[in-house]
C-alpha cells in the first residue's frame, strides 16, 4: 500500500515540477522581453534626445538677438573690406590732376569740401552695400547650417530606425522560452503522468487485493472469537447469510 502511493506521489511531484519548470521558463522569457522592450525604448528616447539637441542648438542660432549680432558683424566685416578696397585703389592711383595756373581760394575750398564729402558718401555706400551683402550671405550660411542640421537629424533617424529593427528582432528572440527548459518540463510532466497512471493502476490492483484478503478468514485477534457461521437467529430462528466482516466478534 505504501509503495503504491509513493509512485503516484513521485509522479505527481514530477508532473508539477515539469509544469513549474515550463512556467518558470515562460516567466523568464516574458521578463527578458519586458527588459528588452524597456531598453529599446530607452535607446529610442536617447536618439530622440540627440535629435532634439541638434535642432535646439540650431534654433538658438535663430533668436533675433543672435541673428542681429551676426548680421551686424558680417556688415561691419563687408563694409571694412569695401572701404579698404577703395582706400587701396586711391593709394595706388593718382588723384585727378589739379588744373594748372592760378586757382581761386573758392575753387580749392570747394574741391577740398567735395573730397571730404566723397569720404562720407563712400562710407555710407559701403555701409549700405555691406548691409545688403551681409543679409544675403547670412541667409545663405543659415541655409547651409539648416541643411547640416537636417542631415544630422536624418543620420540620427537612420540610426534609430536601424536600432529599432535590431531591437525588434532581439525582443522577439528573447520572448521565446528556453527550449531546453520547456523540453525538460515536458519530459517531467510526461514522466509524472506516467507515474501517476502507473500508481493509480497499482492502487486499483492493491484495493482489489485488499478486498480479497479482507474476504478471507484470517487469524483471530486476542480476545476475539470466531462467530459460528450461519447460526440461526435466537429470536426468529432465521439463518443470516455469510458476512466476511462478521466472522470475528469479541
Amino acid at each position, binding site marked *: 500500500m505504501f509503495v503504491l502511493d509513493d509512485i503516484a506521489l513521485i509522479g505527481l511531484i514530477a508532473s508539477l515540477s515539469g509544469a513549474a519548470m515550463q512556467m518558470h521558463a515562460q516567466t523568464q522569457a516574458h521578463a527578458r522581453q519586458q527588459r*528588452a522592450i524597456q531598453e529599446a525604448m530607452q535607446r529610442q528616447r536617447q536618439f530622440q534626445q540627440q535629435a532634439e539637441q541638434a535642432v535646439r542648438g540650431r534654433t538658438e542660432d535663430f533668436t533675433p538677438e543672435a541673428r542681429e549680432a551676426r548680421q551686424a558683424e558680417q556688415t561691419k566685416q563687408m563694409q571694412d573690406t569695401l572701404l579698404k*578696397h*577703395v582706400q587701396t*585703389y586711391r593709394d595706388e592711383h593718382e588723384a585727378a590732376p589739379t588744373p594748372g595756373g592760378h*586757382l581761386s581760394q573758392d575753387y580749392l575750398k570747394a574741391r577740398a569740401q567735395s573730397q571730404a*564729402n566723397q569720404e562720407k558718401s*563712400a562710407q555710407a555706400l559701403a555701409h549700405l552695400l555691406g548691409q545688403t551683402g551681409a543679409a544675403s550671405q547670412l541667409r545663405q550660411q543659415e541655409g*547651409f547650417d539648416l541643411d547640416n542640421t537636417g542631415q544630422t537629424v536624418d543620420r540620427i533617424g537612420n540610426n534609430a530606425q536601424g*536600432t529599432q529593427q535590431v531591437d525588434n528582432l532581439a525582443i522577439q528572440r528573447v520572448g521565446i522560452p528556453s527550449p531546453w527548459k520547456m523540453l525538460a518540463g515536458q519530459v517531467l510532466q510526461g514522466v509524472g503522468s506516467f507515474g501517476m497512471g502507473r500508481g493509480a493502476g497499482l492502487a486499483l490492483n492493491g484495493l482489489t487485493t485488499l478486498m480479497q484478503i479482507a474476504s478471507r478468514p484470517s487469524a483471530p485477534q486476542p480476545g476475539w472469537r470466531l462467530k459460528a457461521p450461519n447460526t440461526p437467529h435466537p429470536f426468529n430462528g432465521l439463518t443470516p447469510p455469510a458476512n466476511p466482516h462478521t466472522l470475528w466478534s469479541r
Partner: protein
Amino acid sequence: MSGGGGDGGAGQMEADRRRRVDQAVGRINDIFGSKDHPAHQGLYDEQQKAVTDLNTREVNRQFEQAERANRFGLARSGLMGGSADVDSQAELSRRTNEGLMKAAGLGQQAAADLRGADERTRQNLISMAQSGLESGQAAQMALAGLDLNAKNAAAQRTSATLDNLFGNLGWAYLARQQQAGQRPWGYY
C-alpha cells in the same frame, strides 16, 4: 543598439552600416573641411581677389576714360578750375567709388558662390553616403565635385562683369554746363 546577440547578427550588420557611413562622411569632411575651417579657404580667397582685381581694372579703365573726356571737355569749355570742375570731379569720384565697391562685392560674391557650390557638393555627397556610398567612392566623387566647382569658378575670372559705370557722363554733364554757360545769367 541591442547588444544581447539574440538578434541573429542584425546588430552587427547595423554596426557595420554605421561604421561605413561614418567613414564615408569623415572622408568627405576631410576633403571639404569644416564650416569654420574650410579646406579650400585659399581657393576662395584667390577667387575673391581675382574677380575683384579683374573688375577693379575695368573700373580704372572706365574712370581714366571718363576723367580724360571730362577734363578735355572742361578745358574746351573754359570751365576748368571752376565749380563745374569741382562738381564733375565729385561725380566722377562718386561713381568710381561705387564701381570699386561693386568690384569688391563681386569678388566677395564670387568667393561665396564658390564656397556655396562646394558646400552643396559636400552635402549631396553626405546624403549619398548615408544611403550607402562607400568611402572610396565618396572621396572620388568629392574630388570630382571640387574640380568641377573650381572650373566653373575659373570661368568667372575670364572677364569683368561690371556695367558701364560712367555712361555718357562727360558729354551729358558738359553739354548741360555748356548750355548753362551760354545763358546770359549763367544759371541753368
